[in-house]
């Protein structure tokens, strides 16, 4: 009896590792292949016989995408748009999240549900009118305008995620500060925000990644060099100049680098916030 249960457990463990290895290969294999491709010479990519490991490792593709295209400009634009988006969301969303988490008020559930329902709206349905509106006020092809458009779906997400972190922060310290004569504002800034620091970082990183990756809004709302972000630029390069695979792969690796680094740093808190937000919602 003991023996069978032990061997069954062992079989289960082996199966578990087999499943996890297969899934990880499925997840990372494509990324690894893109990375290998970015290091290959054109001769190793376009071959009649598949060359798995690059015969010569070259960084030529990285040099090419960085110096022979407007990639640096695209990256700079993306950085600016992402930063503005995060700043807007943090400034306005933190206040809203705090109100949702700490202050009971009439219609709170309705407003919170409203923030969630925003996600139901098809992006296209918002993009078309936004384009017309932004054209009227001269915000088409502006980095600020694009960031503003991003808040339409990222601000609600941010507020919901952060609310979860505020909920998890203990209320006692705040009450103690209030008894000691601190105002609500004082307690919020000095007690609650530091307590929810990790959550604030994780939520900000999450929306930063989303803004960095966004494609559809950017495609519609940017028309020129001045505000075009890297996903749009990369896509257009593929269409216009038949970008060689190696160069495209290098561009891909460069542009996901910040995402991977940020994700690696804050993944634990981010995962926690994502699941809390989604399950409660």
């Amino acid at each position, binding site marked *: 009896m003991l023996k069978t249960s032990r061997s069954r457990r062992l079989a289960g463990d082996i199966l578990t590792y087999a499943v996890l290895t297969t899934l990880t290969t499925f997840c990372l294999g494509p990324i690894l292949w893109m990375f290998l491709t970015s290091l290959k010479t054109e001769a190793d990519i376009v071959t009649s016989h598949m060359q798995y490991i690059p015969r010569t490792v070259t960084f030529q593709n990285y040099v090419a995408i960085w110096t022979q295209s407007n990639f640096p400009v695209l990256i700079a634009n993306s950085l600016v748009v992402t930063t503005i988006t995060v700043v807007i969301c943090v400034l306005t969303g933190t206040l809203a999240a705090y109100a949702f988490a700490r202050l009971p008020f009439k219609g709170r559930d309705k407003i919170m549900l409203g923030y969630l329902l925003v996600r139901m709206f098809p992006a296209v349905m918002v993009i078309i009118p936004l384009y017309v509106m932004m054209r009227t006020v001269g915000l088409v092809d502006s980095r600020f305008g694009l960031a503003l458009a991003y808040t339409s779906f990222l601000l609600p997400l941010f507020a919901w995620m952060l609310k979860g972190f505020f909920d998890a922060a203990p209320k006692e310290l705040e009450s103690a500060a209030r008894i000691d004569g601190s105002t609500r*504002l004082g307690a919020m800034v000095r007690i609650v925000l530091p307590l929810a620091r990790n959550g604030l970082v994780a939520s900000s990183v999450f929306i930063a990644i989303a803004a960095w990756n966004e494609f559809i809004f950017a495609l519609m709302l940017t028309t020129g060099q001045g505000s075009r972000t890297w996903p749009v630029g990369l896509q257009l390069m593929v269409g216009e100049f038949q970008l060689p695979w190696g160069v495209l792969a290098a561009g891909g690796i460069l542009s996901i680098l910040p995402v991977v680094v940020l994700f690696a740093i804050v993944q634990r808190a981010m995962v926690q916030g994502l699941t809390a937000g989604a399950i409660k919602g």
Partner: protein
Amino acid sequence: MRRDHMKSILPRGPITLLGNLSETRYWVYLLLFPSLVLLLLVVAYPTLYGFVISVREMRLTRPGLNGWVGMKHYVAMMSDRVFWISLKNTAIWVTAAIAIEVTLGFVAAVALNRNLPGTKLFGVLILLPYFLPNVVAGHMWALLLDPRLGVINDLLVGIGILSTYKAWFADPATALAATILVEAWHGFPFFALLFLAGLKGIPEDLYKAAAVDGAGPVRQFRLITVPMLKTVIAAAVILRVISLVNSPDLLLVLTGGGPGNATQVLSLYAFQTAYREFNFGYAGALSVVMFILLMLFATIYIRLTRVTKE
């Protein structure tokens, strides 16, 4: 008295004022005001305006054409062949992608939940695709499945499944399936993440009690795991349906709706109508229909999942 006066002329004046304001009942509205105004401006108003556009003629290429047309676009849609193809493709695309993603996500979550050494690292690695941009994911898979240079073709030929390289995205018979594979790769980590959180929330005692009562792993799974996860599954599926129906990114990068209309979906059709033809009126009507269909789906779905729970 004097001290109060002193305080108000100190440079901290505005902050003190805000601090005092935070003690009043207006505080909560003040906190909500900025985000509410912003959302009204970039979501609520555009949405309402979107409904208006859908009953107007609005083509940016022909500014002269402008005016009220009532239900014209909606009537035109009924006899628009591409609309019906897109509707059908959307249904297939979303259903198939979600079925695969739920299955893979569930398998991953169960495996990760066994908490063997190293599962934490596996968990992080498996999650990575979800955070990658669609543009990169799309081109990456285009390279993997390329008809001349694709490594997947090479592997499949190598193990004898294929006899020659296949143009997965150019063949109408396989194009939709190939895009579903890419979407599954991109989206299943989301389900793994949520299911894992759900599994962690199931008390260990339930399984112990069931084991004492003589229930085997299969019955434990059916009688404890699935019912306990029902809410999480329902929530995850609906969130994913919404984002899949709404986002044309991946298909735009991979196929642009082609070949023919083999991978054309509603969101992409609406986007292209606006982006390529600048026919905002018709694109608006298409997105309104999408929105209504999504609302209908959400309402029915939530009803159904509630009914089965009780």
